[in-house]
């Protein structure tokens, strides 16, 4: 994934796959592709934040915030303003959360973001007049409720997320992210705006997670707090991005495909209750066997060096 042709190939393959499935007239595949695409967007959003060294367990907060923002703004204004509202609201919340948690490191950050998610769920339950309480809300239907068009719309969002992710992986941002992640003090003394860059990553990540949530809410035009503010939507992006390969655009997409397909197979084999047992087992196996994710393992397999922003080093050193 390091040369321009390879990058363009990735975009072409993703576009072709989404368009191919959308026009294939197979409802099951369309639903599966929608699930994979939403997961991939969330995972990319998580990965963008993680590039500054923060391991977030709060993606569900923005996911839910997005769905709820469209649902609350849509009746008051119109659909376009509601979607614009998602960007504004999620961006604002991300900026505030980013500023507030700026001093938190490592596990404290993870727990604070987890706490933020569950607090939002409480806010929904405490103000039922405004948020519909436990009964849920009705976000506007995406693309009139036609699954094929929905897939195309969400696919479009994925392409935008990929573009943003790739821009952030280019020369201008990547070294800054790398330094902030590994040595924040050194980054600051080299003139990298640490706070501004961290907040920027937080906002981008929050906005994409919110948009993914709004799309999810628009699938059936109905969400409850337990649909969106669950720990699942916080863990999934982490699992997908780490298993696929962090600090890449390709990794989260590959991870989303692998994990969602696996989930379907497990559901088929084990049934509705407890099928996620496979999920847990696979996560453990991957972390032990492929600590650098599938992308890292593939690179190691083909003897490619893993590129860091400050030069190259041999792959699979297993740091």
């Amino acid at each position, binding site marked *: 994934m390091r040369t321009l042709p390879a990058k363009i190939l990735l975009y072409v393959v993703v576009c072709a796959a989404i368009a191919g499935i959308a026009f294939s007239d197979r409802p099951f595949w369309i639903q599966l592709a929608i699930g994979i695409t939403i997961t991939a967007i969330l995972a990319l959003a998580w990965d963008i934040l993680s590039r500054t060294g923060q391991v977030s367990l709060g993606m569900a907060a923005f996911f839910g915030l997005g769905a709820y923002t469209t649902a609350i703004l849509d009746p008051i204004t119109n659909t376009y303003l509601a979607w614009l509202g998602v960007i504004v609201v999620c961006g604002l919340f991300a900026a505030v959360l980013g500023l507030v948690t700026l001093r938190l490191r490592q596990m404290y950050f993870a727990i604070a973001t987890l706490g933020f998610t569950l607090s939002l769920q409480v806010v929904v339950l405490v103000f039922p007049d405004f948020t519909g309480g436990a009964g849920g809300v009705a976000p506007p239907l995406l693309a009139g409720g036609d699954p094929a068009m929905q897939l195309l719309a969400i696919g479009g969002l994925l392409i935008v997320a990929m573009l943003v992710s790739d821009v952030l992986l280019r020369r201008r941002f990547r070294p800054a992210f790398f330094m902030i992640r590994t040595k924040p003090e050194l980054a600051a003394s080299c003139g990298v705006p640490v706070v501004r860059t961290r907040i920027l990553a937080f906002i981008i990540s929050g906005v994409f997670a919110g948009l993914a949530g709004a799309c999810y809410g628009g699938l059936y035009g109905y969400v409850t707090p337990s649909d969106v503010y669950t720990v699942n939507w916080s863990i999934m992006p982490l699992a997908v991005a780490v298993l696929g390969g962090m600090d890449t655009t390709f990794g989260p997409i590959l991870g989303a495909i692998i994990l969602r397909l696996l989930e379907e197979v497990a559901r088929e084999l084990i049934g509705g209750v407890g099928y996620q*047992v496979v999920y847990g087992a696979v996560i453990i196996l991957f972390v032990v066997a492929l600590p650098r994710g599938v992308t890292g393992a593939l690179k190691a397999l083909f003897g490619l060096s893993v590129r860091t922003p400050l030069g190259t080093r041999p792959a699979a050193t297993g740091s």
Partner: protein
Amino acid sequence: MDAITLSQTILLSITIAALYAAIASGLTLEFGVTKIINFAHGEFVMFGAFITYFLQSNYAINPIIGALVSGLVMMALSWIVFEAFLARVLRQDEHNQILATIGLSILMINLAMIFWGPDARVMHAPDILPALRIGIVTIPGNNLVVLIIGALLFVGITWFLRGTRYGLLLRLASDDPVMAKFAGVNVHGMFRLSFLIGGLTAGISGGLVALVLYIHPLVGTDAVMRAFAIVALGGLGSIGGAVVGAAILSIAENMTSTFVPGGGSWGYGIAFLIIVVVLVLRPSGLFGKELRA
């Protein structure tokens, strides 16, 4: 709110706080030594609750003995889990550590779903202790047992860490693993020891869960979420902080569900508002040591 309900609520909160403190002290011990947050700690508690439940309902075994058996079984399971894969992720990046224990948590929850089904059960054990009447309020016998065993567990862990040779080695290995290695301490063994003790306390806490709460596959997740709040309040790695945190959390939560109309469903969330506020004001918790960035 009248005086009887208020004092009754506070008393019951304190017994439940003992349970949360027991769970949180295992969690914070594991973190303090290995710097890994064990997201699967709650699932060890849940397995412990099921073991105690089945021993009681199938063989009529006293829940206190059941809790001890659960503790030993969970200790053995911790050993297996630690040697099988947790030891391998110790040196990996933080996101891999989080993911590894989350994976274990998902695995254990779903195994419980498959084996025992998702429905909640209640253990109908004969009362071990009679209910205690203090003036106008009563504490049910089971809550009393929870309070006593929870306190014993807590005192036991503190004594182990502060008063025994192993505790000293454990603290050395956690403060400075490299120096400990030079001093001839088996650091790997010490890390394993912290997980063994963590497993033991989780299993025993599970027995306590079976005494006073409903038993279902997600009970551990519920409990450990509160344990996180408590640990964040008290400071990761601080066992004394866990007790203060548990008391604050449990009283706040029970007050909300008793005195706020419809508050029962979101008393849980109060825990998390507290976490966020405390972490913002004091990033290392109330009693936590400063964490190096």
